[in-house]
């Protein structure tokens, strides 16, 4: 299973490059996410063959939280792959370009899978850095001036940030000299032996490092640029899976803090960065001009809420897991739809887009429904998550923090909702004569996401609930 996740993308990528054939490329682009989903399901049902040699096998393992993240990643990957086909057709990509895109995407996904199943802190770091390197090429895929700038900012800022996380890892190994191991299982088992001073410094460094990758304020500078300049299916992958992946790294380190009973320190830092992200996002959301950047700031907001969630202890982390799923699916749907809008209107400026519903009613409705989903209205799961986080504030004895929390959320919703409704409805001044019809690839991914969201939100299936619960019980 681990072999499939890590090596199949590389193999399949080699095949794609060698054959350089349009049908092979597109088939494998759709095949890999399906295989990933199948692997996730099999592993969850308890089946797991191991064909790796023993010395390699100790570095990889599936655990409950990893499976949740893997499942979310695979589903988002499927939606993004379906949309990529539409993207190729619309941009008239050459066979060569399609192959390069597909191979880079495969390596990117394999690197993310590596982060999710690593059992060693430094190895996980290696994979996180690998996700940066592979996705930078995808951001630059359109080869425009602006996408080059975004890619440079992304790769440089994230590399420096991630390097600081490595400083944190070395510092952690200073503190853990007594048992001299950076395997998570050892770190959890011997957490109380780690020197608290070095542990806290190390957490601060790792928070900055992985925080850069997660895109929380004040180290989010790359995020709006990269998300707005990447091709839409890549933006969906960045927002729906990459941020989660780095977030998992941070959760695992937070697990060490909890085991070492130093979580009051880490929770404090997480709360501050979380609220700062909400604040930054709210400030920029009020004067937003570019709808893809708007979605990027919304990602910063949601990552901030996730930070607040895990800082609030046991009830918060369960809420955070629900929000993570809700955010990934809704944001994927939003980013893919933003690709449709870009395709219809050829602009990213909100002010130039009016009457989306008349122009292409299907895109318009998906756009609006996805907004409702991300903003946490019932019946969508983000509602449950935000409700549970509000509850967690009171359980943690920080009820007063719920007030600024909801005020900031309301400001963000006001900014985002205003923009979305202006784009969709406001069509008094302009005459829209022709309607646009895109191929079904342009809608399939989003519809899949919205169906899943409504299914989770209205009637949480037992399996999903148990996956969420066991993931949440991972660190407490």
């Amino acid at each position, binding site marked *: 299973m681990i072999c499939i996740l890590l090596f199949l993308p590389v193999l399949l990528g080699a095949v794609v490059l060698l054959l350089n054939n349009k049908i092979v490329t597109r088939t494998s682009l759709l095949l890999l996410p399906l295989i990933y989903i199948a692997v996730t399901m099999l592993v969850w049902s308890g089946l797991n063959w191991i064909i790796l040699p023993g010395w390699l096998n100790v570095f990889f393992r599936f655990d409950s939280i990893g499976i949740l993240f893997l499942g979310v990643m695979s589903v988002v990957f499927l939606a993004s792959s379906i949309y990529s086909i539409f993207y190729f057709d619309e941009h008239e990509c050459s066979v060569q370009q399609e192959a390069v895109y597909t191979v880079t995407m495969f390596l990117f996904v394999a690197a993310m899978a590596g982060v999710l199943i690593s059992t060693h802190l430094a190895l996980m*770091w290696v994979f996180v850095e690998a996700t940066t390197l592979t996705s930078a090429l995808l951001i630059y895929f359109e080869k425009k*001036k602006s996408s*080059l700038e975004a890619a440079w900012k992304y790769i440089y800022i994230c590399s420096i940030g991630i390097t600081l996380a490595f400083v944190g890892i070395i510092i952690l190994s200073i503190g853990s000299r007594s048992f001299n191991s950076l395997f998570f299982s050892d770190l959890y088992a011997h957490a109380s032996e780690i020197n608290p001073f070095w542990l806290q410094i190390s957490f601060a460094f790792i928070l900055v490092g992985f925080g850069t990758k997660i895109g929380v304020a004040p180290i989010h500078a790359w995020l709006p640029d990269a998300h707005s300049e990447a091709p839409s299916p890549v933006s969906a992958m960045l927002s729906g899976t990459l941020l989660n992946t780095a977030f998992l790294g941070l959760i695992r380190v937070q697990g060490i803090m909890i085991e070492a009973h130093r979580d009051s320190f880490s929770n404090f830092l997480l709360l501050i960065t979380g609220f700062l992200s909400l604040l930054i996002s709210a400030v920029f959301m009020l004067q937003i001009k570019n709808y893809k950047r708007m979605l990027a700031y919304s990602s910063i907001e949601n990552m901030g809420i996730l930070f607040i969630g895990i800082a609030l202890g046991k009830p918060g982390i369960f809420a955070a897991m629900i929000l993570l799923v809700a955010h990934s699916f809704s944001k994927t749907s939003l980013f893919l739809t933003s690709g449709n809008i870009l395709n219809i209107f050829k602009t990213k400026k909100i002010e130039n887009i009016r009457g989306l519903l008349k122009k292409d009613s299907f895109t318009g409705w998906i756009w609006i429904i996805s907004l409702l989903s991300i903003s946490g209205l019932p019946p969508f799961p983000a509602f449950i998550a935000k409700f549970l986080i509000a509850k967690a504030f009171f359980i943690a004895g920080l009820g007063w923090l719920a007030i600024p929390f909801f005020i900031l959320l309301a400001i963000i919703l006001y900014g985002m909702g205003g923009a979305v409704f202006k784009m969709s409805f406001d069509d008094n001044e302009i005459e829209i004569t022709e309607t646009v019809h895109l191929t079904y690839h342009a809608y399939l991914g989003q519809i899949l996401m919205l169906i899943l969201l409504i299914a989770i939100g209205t009637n949480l299936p037992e399996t999903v609930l148990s996956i969420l619960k066991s993931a949440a019980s991972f660190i407490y």
Partner: protein
Amino acid sequence: MSNILIILLGTSILYIFAASRIESYVKTLAFQGFALFLLVILDLKEINWINIAFLAIETLVVKAIVIPLFLLRVIRKNEIGREVEPYISQFYSMLIASGIFIFGFVAAFWSAKVGAEVKPLYFGVSIVLIIASLFLIVNRKRIITHILCYMILENGIFLLSLSVANEMPMLVNLGVLLDLFVGIYLFVIFFNKIQEMFDGNHIDILTELKD
């Protein structure tokens, strides 16, 4: 012997602060790589031989030869061997460098005093390298100097990991090296593209994207 090497590594940072030509950055990088190689060899008794062979090859071949040569070729090809163009003048940079050194020494003394399980001199100088390279990144206009300072940062982290003398598994060492290699390669690719498309190599020209 290893103490002298560490001191030389520290001095190389002062040299970089004072240097005004970009090529001297590359030479310093090669020197640092070689010094790290000697340090690894001198620590021979502490680590097992596969790891030491790997680290020796990594420092000597990659850090001291391949990456500096690669960057030197890029610099010569693009004819940007002249000034480094700092934001803050050389004099104030030197003052700040002294401040960083004082901090590094305090950290070294402190780590020796509290009995932290690190080698104090290694620890102090590696902190100097890390902070100084971050300062240089902020204080330089040219994109190529950003890439060079990233390498200095990597060297600082390598020294920090030597100060702990905790060995990482082989797989991790390999992965870190691969990431570094691909990272530098991609940096240079993007750097070349920026020169082509933006017609310049200052970080100030990247102004396409803002809110």
